[in-house]
């Protein structure tokens, strides 16, 4: 386990004990936050609605398609779908409807596909509560439309799980193509797609530091290259370990891991 350092704790509302939100179907919208400076605006970012998706039950992971300008792919864990959003036309359609995206109807929370990320003309995605842990599907780089069948990369998790909280939330790629997964069981796991290995890097179901891991992202500057930033919900999804303590952002130096 590498060194990790708490950067900041954001105070989340402690509203008692709960393991999942109850999203209102039809209430989901996508928004743009533009950090480019604009004249006459002193706010950090200008915020505009992209599009409302009335049929979405729940929206969670989002990823951009770098080869298709202005296209986003968005996970709907409730319906078990991935939407394709055109940010300039403000339109959307279903990109993928597949059994690998569906929620486990016997799980404590009925959510399926969670994290979605594009890497080399394929969409990689995980499933929160049932097989597969990780799969991918190819798409046409310019149209960002599906171009082949879903390929399962990891059927099941081999790291310790808290069954009420599931296996997978969001993830990110490192420069060598490995996946750094924020598991739903308060841990960070490195998935090597070529060797088909799963390596527990930090945390576990009862880890108070990493309780409620939700996402990972690598630093982009010279100084924090190789530093993995990890977000948590502070126990919102599992108050049984330390209660709800506020979400955190942590930094992990992945050198040698």
């Amino acid at each position, binding site marked *: 386990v590498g060194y990790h350092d708490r*950067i*900041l704790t*954001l105070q*989340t*509302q402690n*509203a*008692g*004990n*709960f*393991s*999942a*939100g*109850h*999203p*209102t179907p039809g*209430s*989901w*919208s*996508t*928004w*743009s*936050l*533009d*950090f*480019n400076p604009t004249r006459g605006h002193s*706010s*950090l*970012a200008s*915020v505009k609605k*992209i599009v409302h998706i009335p049929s979405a039950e*729940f*929206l*969670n*992971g*989002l*990823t*951009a398609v770098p080869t298709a*300008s*202005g*296209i*986003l792919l*968005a996970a709907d864990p409730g319906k078990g779908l991935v939407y394709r*959003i055109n*940010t300039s036309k403000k339109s959307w359609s279903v990109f993928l409807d597949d059994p690998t995206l569906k929620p486990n109807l016997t799980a*404590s929370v009925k959510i399926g596909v969670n994290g979605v990320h594009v890497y080399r003309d394929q969409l990689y995605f995980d499933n929160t509560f049932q097989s597969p842990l990780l799969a991918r599907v190819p798409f046409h780089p310019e149209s960002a439309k599906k171009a082949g069948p879903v390929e399962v990369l990891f059927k099941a998790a081999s790291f310790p799980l808290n069954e009420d909280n599931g296996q997978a939330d969001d993830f990110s790629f490192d420069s060598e193509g490995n996946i750094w997964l924020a598991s739903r069981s308060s841990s960070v796991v490195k998935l090597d797609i070529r060797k088909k290995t799963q390596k527990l890097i930090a945390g576990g179901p009862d880890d108070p530091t990493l309780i409620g891991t939700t996402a990972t*992202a*690598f*630093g*982009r*500057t010279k*100084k*924090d290259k190789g*530093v993995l*930033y990890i*977000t948590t*919900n502070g126990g*919102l999804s599992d*108050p049984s370990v330390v209660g709800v303590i506020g*979400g955190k*952002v942590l930094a992990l130096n992945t050198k040698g891991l």
Partner: protein
Amino acid sequence: VRSNGKLVVTLVNVPQVWQIDPTTHSAELVHEFESADGVLGIAEYDSDVFAVVSAVCSWDTMIEY
């Protein structure tokens, strides 16, 4: 993560987006959404332009544990 090294995070049970400077351990509010309860999913789809999703989500009514 922005190209300038700052982190942009969404709060799942509060309709806010925050920017974090990992070098100074400080945070500032980027935006608070009206008529929403939480913000999820973030992706940079143009240079320094990020997308997020917002929703009405009753985080405070469900008691399971």
